[in-house]
């Protein structure tokens, strides 16, 4: 320690002020050279909307053909600026932005948009506003569809609802006149730092069936009856398919009806290693039940480790 301090002191004192400034300048210059992206090494196999020249109006490149944008822009959109990159070598890297094989004999393209690439836009969707105008029971003489949420959220599996993957559920109202219209991409799509979207939201009560509820299919209800926060959601950010335990226990833990929650809490009392399975998969069913569950059962909350 003492040696270090002496060495540093003598090193600093040994250099003139001018020499120190020059050394500092040289090191800074070297760092800048290393850190700064070199234009000659641009990677044309990756397309970014963040590039200033790629921020023209969307229809400069993307052609809206009723009823949706279905494919990548035509070659013209790229060639107008990137002619040199198009004719560079036998396998120009720029082709791989859209084409799965960089060969003039193979036109095969990735699905549009390429599911393997990161998302470059966030979607603004105010559920609250859409709830105001469309979320009522749909009248249908043929089959009673229970909520207008199904316009966008059709059933994907018996448990989960799907989210829109194209514009069909938007454009039937927003095709023209009703803003944001089909040509006003920026009305919904906001440029963002590229990100990988979450593949699926966390499901806690994974055994829930949207079409279930016994023979009477009592789970078929208005979506907002259980998804209680959706009518206040002005943005998709932080949105969760949150359902309070009370939505379940109105039927599943009611005197004279069912006691599904109480039964499992009692089972934990008897065996702290009991796994709650009525609603949950084991990864959740092995955890301590949250306070809300004990509140419903009108009991003080317990930790498994405290149960003998």
């Amino acid at each position, binding site marked *: 320690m003492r040696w270090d301090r002496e060495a540093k002191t003598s090193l600093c004192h040994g250099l003139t002020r001018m020499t120190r400034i020059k050394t500092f300048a040289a090191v800074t210059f070297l760092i800048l050279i290393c850190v700064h992206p070199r234009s000659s090494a641009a990677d044309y196999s990756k397309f970014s909307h963040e590039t200033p020249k790629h921020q023209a109006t969307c229809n400069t490149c993307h052609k809206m053909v009723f009823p949706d944008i279905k494919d990548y822009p035509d070659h013209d959109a790229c060639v107008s600026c990137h002619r040199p990159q198009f004719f560079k070598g036998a396998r120009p890297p720029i082709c791989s932005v859209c084409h799965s094989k960089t060969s003039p004999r193979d036109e095969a393209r990735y699905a549009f948009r390429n599911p393997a690439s990161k998302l470059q836009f966030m979607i603004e969707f105010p559920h609250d506003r859409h709830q*105001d105008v*469309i979320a009522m029971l749909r009248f249908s003489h043929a089959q009673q569809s229970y909520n*207008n949420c199904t316009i966008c959220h059709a059933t994907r599996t018996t448990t989960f609802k799907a989210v829109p993957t194209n514009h069909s559920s938007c454009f039937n109202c927003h095709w023209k006149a*009703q803003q944001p219209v089909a040509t006003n991409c920026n009305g919904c799509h906001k440029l963002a730092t590229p990100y990988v979207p979450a593949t699926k939201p966390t499901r806690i009560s994974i055994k829930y069936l949207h079409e279930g509820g016994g023979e009477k299919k009592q789970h078929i209800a208005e979506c907002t009856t259980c998804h209680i*926060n959706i*009518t206040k959601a002005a943005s998709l950010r932080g949105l969760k398919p949150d359902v309070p*335990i*009370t939505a379940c226990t109105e039927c599943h833990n009611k005197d004279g009806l069912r006691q599904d929650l109480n039964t499992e809490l009692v089972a934990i009392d008897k065996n702290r290693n009991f796994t709650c399975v009525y609603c949950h998969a084991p990864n959740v069913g092995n955890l301590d039940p949250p306070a809300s569950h004990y*509140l419903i059962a009108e009991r003080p909350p317990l930790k498994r480790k405290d149960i003998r």
Partner: protein
Amino acid sequence: MRAPKLVFFALLLMVTVVLAQSQQPAARQTGVLRLRVRVKADDAAPLRGLSRKRFFLIPGTIEQNRALIDAIARQASTSRDCYYQKIGASAALIAWLRDGDCESVYCRGVEQDFVVGPKAVPEFATAFATSQKEFGNDETARQWLTTNLAADVRDGFYRSRQTSLAALLKQASPEVHSVMTDRNGTAYFTDLGPGTYVLTNLIPTELGQNFVTWNCEVQVKPGDLATEKPYLVSNRKDKNVKCVGIEKPKPVCATD
């Protein structure tokens, strides 16, 4: 002499930063308001849940929100029927909107019966014909029919209410919460800081021949949804009703 001092201050700064970062934020206690809105259109009608109506929760007491409450009372309200009569909408469209208690044409799907045949709504029939030409497919033409309706017909009434709402909300605290009731008239305000709020519908709700306005003071305490008893809202007095609305007869529509 200067170096040890500098080192000391640098260490002190580092410790402060580390401590500040490691401090866990105090768990924010929140409360819930479980709203249950049950109304009667008239004395003979049964009590029913008021579905699909938006309610607002504004921080502060009624007195603190006096300017807003007065503005709510002063606003001139137009009923849906009067609005659509004024823009020259057909009786069939007015009836179609009334049947669904709709503020715009978006609130229910337009079925084939309302496009052609004896129940057809003239505005829908015209838009359908235009859509057929544009989209070349009857099913798409029906489903995308609203894209060929005039703006006022489409959602003019809804937009006029939104304009009034925005003007009123400008006078309220920026921390306004809002939710919409479900088909049973239930809605939940969640993640509320404990305190006093004004529960209001801001824009009068049409109920039979009347407009109803609710402005009530509510106390929110920290708590969980699981224990929260419903806060009953109605247009009729009852021992369980915590918030009774003020009713005013709807004005007669102006005739040109």
